């Protein structure tokens, strides 16, 4: 990958090697890479940073768009929710007794009916899954950097996250 102007570190790669060899956190502290290998590693680390940043950005944009669409659908179906002098109070929708989908089955049914609130819940699910996807990409990135200890650590985090979803019985 060629370096992107303005996004690269303003400090030359060689400097971080000179200050002890582990300036940018790229596994060199443990492995004693040659300057050429270190430069290659820095490039890999930068690539990983950009990929992780992109995963987060895509997750955020996609979930934001789905949630907006859900809100639009909800107001389109329930004109009384936005009429200026309608008697409908928001409290009908935010009390402890309010019904909304909170299992995958209920979410599926709600989506099949074209219910706006189901679409919002779907968008929120995408938002919740974005950090999980980010961790999964983290495992792959550390494997790409051939950093087995960090890959194992990140894999453990991924397992705990997946377990949390199964234990919750969603």
């Amino acid at each position: 990958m060629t370096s992107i102007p303005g996004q690269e570190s303003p400090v030359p790669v060689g400097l971080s090697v000179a200050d002890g060899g582990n300036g940018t956190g790229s596994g060199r502290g443990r492995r004693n890479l040659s300057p050429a290998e270190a430069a290659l590693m820095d490039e890999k680390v930068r690539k990983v940073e950009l990929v992780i940043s992109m995963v987060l950005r895509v997750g955020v944009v996609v979930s934001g768009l789905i949630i907006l669409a859900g809100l639009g659908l909800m107001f389109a179906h329930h004109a009384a929710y936005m009429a200026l002098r309608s008697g409908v109070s928001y409290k009908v929708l935010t009390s402890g007794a309010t019904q909304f989908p909170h299992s995958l089955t209920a979410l599926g049914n709600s989506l099949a009916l074209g219910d706006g609130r189901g679409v919002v819940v779907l968008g929120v699910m995408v938002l919740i899954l974005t950090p999980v996807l980010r961790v999964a990409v983290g495992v792959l990135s550390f494997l790409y950097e051939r950093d087995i200890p960090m890959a194992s650590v990140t894999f453990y985090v991924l397992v705990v996250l997946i377990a949390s979803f199964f234990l919750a019985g969603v």
Partner: protein
Amino acid sequence: MYGYVYNRTVTPFDFVISLALVSVAAGVLGSLIGLGGGVVIVPVLTLLYGVDIRLAIGASIVSVIATSSGAAAAYVRERMTNLRVGMFLEIATTTGALSGAYLTTLLPTRFLFAFFGLVLAYSSFTTFKRRHVAQPLAVSSDGIANYFDLHGSYYDPAEDQEIAYKVTGTKLGLFLMYVAGLVSALLGIGSGALKVPAMDGAMHLPMKVSSATSNFMIGVTAAASAAVYFARGQIDPIIAAPVAIGVLAGATVGARVLGRVASKTVRLVFVVVLVIISLEMLQKGLLP
């Protein structure tokens, strides 16, 4: 009676628009100091809108994930986040969050609020005392930090220079992160409030890196307990939607601010918010 604007019913539409605007502010503040938007969202929902606390906590979890992903996209690209420290410490936060989600019934909530109110009051005091400390560590004899190569450097636009730093105190850091995950799952708030002092104080990361890395981590911590909140029916779409949209917008703006302000300012804003949270927690724990 309906003829008067000030007396008309607050419709769901008014609710969504006003809450989205509040959430923008929550997102800016949350992304700047690495705490997530819950600090603002929970009191606004319960006190201003009279929303059930269970639903407010569900919305807080959504706001934390939105702040985290929204701001981290920028912080990671700008190399403000220490990815290795973040992913390493997530071992402890996710384990804490998972155990916390199932301890809810075992521990008295009032005691927890009082206890963590005191912990946060103490850490706001120590953070305030450290407000002039800006010199990062040059050497570290921490075995774990050296093995996993957690040290790093970042470019500080406010000071216009690359700042290299070493990491220490990983064991204490891991312990504090476990507690942070536990608290996040038990009380729905306070995850970032313990993460930032753990990194800034115990592990000697620069303040801005601590904030950006906390931001990066809180999304994963919150995701570990989000499934439980979802299954329990605490994530109400009409509350979650404006919170998510507003916070995402605010966090994107907030992420542009952190680099430009001085570390000392970030720390002071952090201390003020920490004092408010600790007072809130003490009030919930001590008052009837």
